[in-house]
């Protein structure tokens, strides 16, 4: 009966671990084109290689909800495809508008880019780590590096060019 149950509670784990970085560093990294500070994966494969960027599996889960920290490492940091990370919240109105637009923009790329959705109340530690202050925040990642990001709403054209930039078109 009671509305918000335990699941909904914000949760943070202590900020330790090998690949954590201070929020400020994440924010700083976001503006530079490529920062090695976030690069913890040993992957150096080219994301443009067609055999790698269009495997059947990535077609099926081109847009997914991040389950936990390990899942984030596996499917975002270690992803062969570039990934848009959509930090959103249930209580955030603009997120509800941006989400479907992002899905659409990703859909147009036919599997060349993936989208990871992070609910900041369920995965507060991730959002805090990546310097998220307001939602929606969208971070573009390639090979585990933050290469671009924006906060707030964008229209479809703006999203298309954001995504195109990410996949290098």
């Amino acid at each position, binding site marked *: *009966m*009671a*509305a*918000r*149950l*335990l699941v*909904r*509670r*914000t*949760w*943070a784990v*202590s*900020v330790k671990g090998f690949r954590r970085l201070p*929020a400020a560093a994440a924010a700083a990294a976001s503006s530079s084109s490529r920062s090695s500070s976030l690069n913890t994966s040993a992957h150096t494969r080219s994301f443009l290689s067609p055999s790698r960027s269009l495997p059947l599996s990535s077609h099926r889960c081109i847009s997914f909800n991040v389950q936990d920290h390990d899942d984030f490492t596996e499917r975002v940091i270690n992803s062969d495809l570039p990934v848009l990370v959509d930090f959103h*919240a*249930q*209580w*955030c*109105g603009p997120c509800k508008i941006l989400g479907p637009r992002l899905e659409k923009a990703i859909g147009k790329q036919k599997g060349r880019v993936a989208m990871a959705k992070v609910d*900041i*109340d369920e995965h*507060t530690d991730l959002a*805090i780590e990546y310097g*998220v*202050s307001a*939602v929606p925040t969208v971070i573009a990642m390639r090979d585990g590096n933050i290469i671009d990001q924006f906060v707030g709403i964008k229209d479809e054209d703006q999203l298309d060019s954001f995504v195109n930039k990410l996949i290098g078109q």
Partner: protein
Amino acid sequence: MPPVETEHGQIKARIRELVDTNRVVIFSKSYCPFCKKVKALFEELNVTCEVLELDLIENGSSYQDVLTEMTGQKTVPNVFVNKTHVGGCDKTMQAYKDGHLQQLLGAESTAYDYDLIVIGGGSGGLACSKEAAALGKRVMVLDYVVPTPLGTTWGLGGTCVNVGCIPKKLMHQTALLHTALEDARKFGWEFSEAVSHNWETMKTAVNNYIGSLNWGYRVSLRDKSVEYTNAYAEFVEPHKIKATNKRGKETFYTAAKFVLATGERPRYLGIPGDKEYCITSDDLFYLSYCPGKTLVIGASYVALECGGFLAGLGLDVTIMVRSILLRGFDQDMANRAGDHMETHGVKFLRQFVPIKVEQLEAGTPGRLKVTAKSTETDELFEGEYNTVLIAVGRDACTGSIGLDKAGVKVNSKNGKVPVNDEEQTNVPHIYAIGDILEGKWELTPVAIQAGKLLARRLFAGSSVKCDYVNVPTTVFTPLEYGSCGLSEEKAIEYHGEENLEIFHSLFWPLEFTIPGRDNNRCYAKIICNKLDSDRVIGFHYLGPNAGEVTQGFGAAMKCGVTKEQLDNTIGIHPTCAEIFTTMEVTKRSGGDIKQSGC
């Protein structure tokens, strides 16, 4: 060698040995307050010291003579740190302040994980931890919400944001809009559809706003470099806490200083059916369905505010009152606020207490049967309601945080923590702020102010204390009640009726005239001390926007405003607040206080 010489030599050797083999040696006397202060300092620093109480050993005075000879200091305490003579109490305190003592002690004295651990991330705890971190300290704050018996829980920020001021005021606003809608037709607005209210829309909107606030608090802790842990904290040692997270994982942390800011939670009645079937304010704001016909138990401000806005939404509301309305507030004002509620459809069941609550039918909402008995006769009362809201006061969350392990005294009757005027408990390195304090205001801005000032005193050498006098406050009943300073009852008790002049007036807000409602229901009253230039010592306002009105007069009272200064103030016309610049009728005179025209 004469025996005296031998004793002297022996004592000297013994003192040398003590000083050489111990990190800290204090020559002390057990009754000496300065010695106690020094001992407390080292305890706070978590440094073990060797203490020799000279009044308790046989040849104590000889020790004192030898010490005088060795150090040139006659008095106790006489403190040595790492073989260096530091001096007495003042010198030791000074050395602590300028950091010399810490240098002498070496690295080991900074062995705590944090400079400050704050238990409770509510209004007070967040303010205190952020301020301390801004002053360069290593700070941790722990916040953990124990779910209600019905399973409701919420995010970071404490009572005010999640289950207090914020949702309460937003739902009060919802109710005010209902009145405004009714007024609107009288002002010529035409809308044909019957007006109805959707609880879920309101609840979702309110909860979403709270969600954004929770996140904002989390971000500001990150930005201010406060370490945040979502875990339940309890003391295991005076300088050590155990933090248990949602999954039951235990972690231990130590700190030099602690601030308790655990707040309060709603009290239950201890009657059959209360925890099973009733809700409290902790559940109300997250209720997924409209509560329907509601019984509110209690006459606290929480009871009147919640009962008030539920009635304002159009629900059938009854308030069960054990004795009086708003204990502790000016009773004249409390009754006027109550009367206004009664004329707007809130039913009061007076002099009754509930004895059991039974479920007739489960549902959202279900149906409950409440049995109550009169406090004066044998009369029993039975009633059926969809929802029963218990609002009979709140209990301090101090019972299960290991205060016994830290040696902190609490008032066993109400669980409140007594502190001195610097919010310090009986244990010098443990402080307390906010709702858990004994005999202090339970208001968010008070907790914030106390927390901020405490951090500045602890870490920035400030001496400014929190002023708990003349705190302005507002009860958001349908007709709002704002006050600052003394109630009439307290003013009479402190100063004597003959030394007071009370000015009062009814008034009719211009906005109410066209709808033709609540004529001469709003009321203003000031209590002046005749022996002190007619200084205003009590301010009371019942009317719209009471919070906005009272805030400014609160500032005036902080500056010591007198009746004459109020009279010399030019009003803003047409407003409600201007009434305070033209108050002429004294209560003593029995003169007419009804208002008409400009």
